[in-house]
């Protein structure tokens, strides 16, 4: 297990991140956008953990930071979903390009 090279972890995290970017840019549904966002966040978290393991083995700051970021993103997602539900209740629509009632 310990001989999985660093580049492999980084490749996975890069793929995750750009999958998130692609999803964020191409999807219109707010929930999908939110999911893409989480994907990007998780890619970053993965990097924290991996760099912690390879650069400072025996220390745990990176791991703690990952846990901390997961907690924050969970709270943030809760808020975002609450907003999306409210938008849906009011407008019956959660397509990001069509929800422009408050634009002007």
């Amino acid at each position, binding site marked *: 297990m310990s001989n999985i090279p660093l580049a492999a972890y980084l490749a996975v995290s890069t793929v995750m991140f750009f999958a998130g*970017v692609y999803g*964020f*840019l191409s999807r219109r549904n707010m929930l999908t956008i939110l999911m893409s966002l989480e994907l990007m966040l998780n890619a970053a978290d993965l990097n924290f953990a991996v760099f912690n393991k390879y650069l400072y083995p025996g220390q745990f700051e990176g791991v703690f930071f990952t846990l901390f970021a997961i907690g924050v993103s969970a709270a943030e997602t809760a808020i975002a979903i609450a907003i999306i539900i409210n938008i849906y209740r009011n407008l019956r629509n959660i397509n990001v390009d069509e929800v*422009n009632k408050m634009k002007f």
Partner: protein
Amino acid sequence: MMSYTLIILILPALMFLFLGLCGSKMKPVVAGTFGTFGLTVVTVLSYVTAATYFFSIGKTGGAYQTIIPFNVEWLRITEKLHIDLGIMLDPISVVMLIVVSTVSLMVHIYSLGYMKGERGFQRYYALLSLFSFSMLGLVVATNIFQMYIFWELVGVSSYTLIGFYYTKPSAVAASKKAFIVTRFADLFFLIGILVISFYSQTFDFASLTSPTGSILGQPIGATFMGVSVISWAMMLIFIGGAGKSAMMPFHIWLPDAMEGPTPVSALIHAATMVVAGVFLVARMFPLYFFGAPDVLNIIAYIGAITALFAAIVACTQTDIKRVLAFSTISQIAYMITALGVSGYGGEAGLGYMASMFHLFTHAFFKALLFLCAGSVIHVIHSNEMDDMGGLRKYMPITHITFLVACLSISGIPPFSGFFSKDEILVAAFNKDILLFGCLYFCAGLTAFYMFRLYFRIFWGENNKQYEHTPHESPANMTIPLIFLAALTCITGFVPFSQLVSSDFIPFQTHIEWSIAGLSILVAIIGITIATVMYRKENNIPHRVAVVAKGFYTSAYHKFYFDEIWFFITKNIIFNNVSKPIAWFDRHIVDGFMNFLSSSTNFVSRKIKVVQSGEIQDYTWAFFMGALVMIVLLIFV
């Protein structure tokens, strides 16, 4: 010393603010009483000032001194040139204080009756206070710029009072006409002030008019178009005076100004504001005499022509207030002519003294005439002579006081007009026989048209039917009439040359009986003709009008001056000057600004697309930007 004179100015100003701001919250009669009370205090103080000045502190070494009890620097322009605000007492300003405050007080009292029940009664009294303040400030001005400030203030208050009945289109038109005409003339006044102060480096009357002062002491060689700049400046200043004093060709506003309430006509357009031009020339007199004698000659001739013109027109008008307006123009022209023929110092300065004397007496009897006319209008509700006649039975007090004023203006002794007019005629006779002849003929015309007015109002058709029987006006209107009539009887005996003279040194005058006799003779001829023509109704006036048809018609139309002005302004100035300027303004100036705004508008509409509000567009741009940066960081 005499610092209480400041109250004379401050009190009416405060009264204006007080009545203007709080007037609508109080009853009309309370506002009127406040205004009248304030003016009473001012009048008392003016009389105290005059008594103190003339009898105790004014004279030292046989000549009256100029006293400046109050002066503050208001605006400093250069090291030497600064505008002050202050109070200057010398014989003419003290005499003017008496004239203005007395007539103003009489008008305040009279208006309590005349304006009773009018809408805007409180506003009326506020404006009267404003006018009194401005006029008093004008006469006591220490420097020409302060005078100019108050000069404009009287113009504004005259404008508001002429347009007092602002729902009447003719009154609004008249007020605008008065303001624009006088303002147009004031433009020249301002240019004159600037020229004279540029060369003399002072605004102060004291140094401007002293015969050895800054401008006369070192004569200036500068000329413009072959005439010295002083002459130009003095001519321009006189044009300003001519505008206010309704000299030809600026007289057109005064007859129309009669649209205002009659007491206003009495105060502003007979006794005080319209003589501001005379006062201005008198104030600057040494400068005219030593610096610009050629202008003084022009002034004399303008005065004489105006006097003759206005007297002729007055004979044909049928609106009683317009007759009085033309008579005012004619009498002011007398004063102007007297200044024009005057010399400087002692006996030679008779014209100067006569002019001020006539100003003094004329203010009282002309105010009286207007107030009597107001009393008649108050009862008849019409300005037209044809609606009147036989009123002497119904209105005895108005009748007698009007008769006194008529006799005075016609120059019958012992009424005041005789004395002052006689001095003017003597002064004109000594200088120029042509001017004398002109004024002499005017004196006859004056007697004629005044008695024409008198007979047509109070005699004529004895059995004329009125809608309701005319009655005498209330006491608060007749008391000012009686007071002014009393003044008209006694002011002629004031030894005026002991008080006012061109060089402030008193001198002796006596009545030249040869000329006085001639003037009484012509006045009696005028009165006789008027008696024959108008005492009983007959067809002589009609026959005269038919015989001199062309002349009569043109005089009736005021010699078409209004039409000429209208032609000049409308057809020549509007079409050839204003329209091109308006075109330039609309197309070039406005066009440039419109181009700026519309091009900004265009560009902003084009780049608005970038800010779509679509979150994903923004993110796209963000990522692309980030990518480009990374590529640059790695490969460059």
